[in-house]
């Protein structure tokens, strides 16, 4: 008897896409664990070669895990930012998180030194920037969605000025180079010890964002419409913004600035699923993890010296941004 092949339903298709992306991520994770200046092999690791195991646990495992959860976090928060700001080009940058973190990191490098101090300082900078943006937005009596974006632009300008002033006072030989390197982003100096607290906070933030998915979607309507649907718009927007910022600040305080993933990953996920359900939010995270893992593998394997990750994320992100602008004109 002939059996006709049924096409997958929309939901099944979304799950298949998620599983394929998950499988690609697993392959990239394996590559990331094995590829680098000191190549590792599974046989070598199993055979208990001292150096291989040491390299694996002290260098590869931490940076691979960082690429996975960092990318995942940037993808999911990018999805939340774009949806609640009703702006397809929105990302953590627009409310000053990244510029605040940069200024904070520069202050850390100049005044404290040491990786933990730089991490804490950039985290503090990111939070100060968001607090300032939220405060400025609250001063706008119209309380429109655009207020936070305008406040973000003001905070970004202020943070850039602080960063410039800090760079001027930096020693050009050592500190200035460190600041520039941090701004370019990278996963090479991250240890499991550094990751512990940020990873837990980030994981918690992502779980909460998933639980709040329905509220995120309700905020995609304009504020008057959302209010008439029973959403306490101001409070809910603030809550989701703070949770997202916490997650982003936890990530970039360790990795330095990583461009475009928060913008790129949710768009690729939406292009594939053509919806904004929870599965698309999950796919945004998986896409973010895939892009960051791939960029990290390339950063440490295409040249004799390790390159900044943002070079590769920007190489993918910039053409995609141009494509998005073109697509919006069509619409």
């Amino acid at each position: 008897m002939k059996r006709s092949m049924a096409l997958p339903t929309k939901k099944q298709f979304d799950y298949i896409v998620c599983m394929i992306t998950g499988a690609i991520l697993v392959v990239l994770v394996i590559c990331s664990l094995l590829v680098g200046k000191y190549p590792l092999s599974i046989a070598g690791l199993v055979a208990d070669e001292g150096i291989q195991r040491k390299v694996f646990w002290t260098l590869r495992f931490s940076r691979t895990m960082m690429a996975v959860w960092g990318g995942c976090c940037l993808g999911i928060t990018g999805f939340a930012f774009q949806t609640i700001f009703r702006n397809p080009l929105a990302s953590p940058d627009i409310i000053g998180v990244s510029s605040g973190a940069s200024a904070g990191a520069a202050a850390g490098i100049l005044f404290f030194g040491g990786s933990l101090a730089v991490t804490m300082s950039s985290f503090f900078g990111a939070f100060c920037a968001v607090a300032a943006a939220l405060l400025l937005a609250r001063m706008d009596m119209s309380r429109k969605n655009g207020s936070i974006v305008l406040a973000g632009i003001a905070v970004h300008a202020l943070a850039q000025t602080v960063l410039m002033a800090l760079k001027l006072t930096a020693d050009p030989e050592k500190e200035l180079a460190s600041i520039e390197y941090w701004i370019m982003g990278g996963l090479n100096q991250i240890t499991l010890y550094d990751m512990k607290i940020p990873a837990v906070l980030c994981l918690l933030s992502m779980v909460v964002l998933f639980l709040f998915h329905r509220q995120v979607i309700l905020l995609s309507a304009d504020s008057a419409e959302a209010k008439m649907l029973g959403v306490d718009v101001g409070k809910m927007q603030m809550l989701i913004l703070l949770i997202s910022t916490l997650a982003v600040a936890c990530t970039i305080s360790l990795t330095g600035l990583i461009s475009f993933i928060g913008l790129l990953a949710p768009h690729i996920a939406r292009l594939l699923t053509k919806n904004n359900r929870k599965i698309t939010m999950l796919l945004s995270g998986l896409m973010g993890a895939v892009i960051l893992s791939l960029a990290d593998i390339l950063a440490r394997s295409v040249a004799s010296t390790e390159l900044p990750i943002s070079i590769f994320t920007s190489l993918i992100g910039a053409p995609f941004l141009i494509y998005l602008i073109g697509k919006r004109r069509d619409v």
Partner: protein
Amino acid sequence: MMHFFAVEHLSAGYARKEVLRDISFQTQQGSLVGVLGANGSGKTTLLKAICQLVAHSGSCLLEGEEIGTFSARNLARKCAYIPQRSGIEIDISLLDVVCMGFNSSLGILQQPTKEMKARAMQALQQVGLAERADENYRLLSEGQKQLCIVARTLVTDAKLFLLDEPESALDIQHRSRLMALFRDTVKERNACVLAALHDPNLALHWCDKLLLIQDGTILEQLYPKKDSLKKMEQAFAKLYGDVSLLSCKDAYGNEHLVLFHITEEGICSR
């Protein structure tokens, strides 16, 4: 006597510009009230002030309770609002848009139940979009988007429906279908509809009461089923200029009121 819905001395505006001045009116349960007026006369501002979306003075009482004291959730439970154009611009299915209407009955972390989804499908059926439930809302025509938002309103347990030009993007067939749907809904639920409309003929046919608004004040309150043609014609003339109101019968013998606008070139229907 306590009215089902009463607006008392309502004034509202934006920044320093006053758009509505001292508006007062009452409506009864089961009634469909039309708000008519030229562009910029204050129809939308009136609905937004009742929804607490613009700054205002005066009071809006629903079943004796001041609407301004309602929490966001309680406001959504008791008042359903259809804006001129929905702000949803993301890829989302029609079913998910309709399920948004259940938000006020759900906890923050709760998801719509199977029963809710079945009710949402029923509402989509009522507006003729059930077969497109899984399609992308963003890709619908403006008229279909409007019908989907109407379905979202129908799944609520609201007592007061505030509709801002719900007919503007609809063809003649869907306009009548929409008004019939709301007439049946208010009768079934003992609720009330306040609809800002552009088409006086649609308003004359379906509404129990009409509020004619000019320059932010109520010019006249009309009852199409009770008032004389002459009285209504005079009232409409104040709003639209030279008009003529006629009563005519359709092929089934049903009586209709038709308003004509008289111009220098001749007569045209409003």
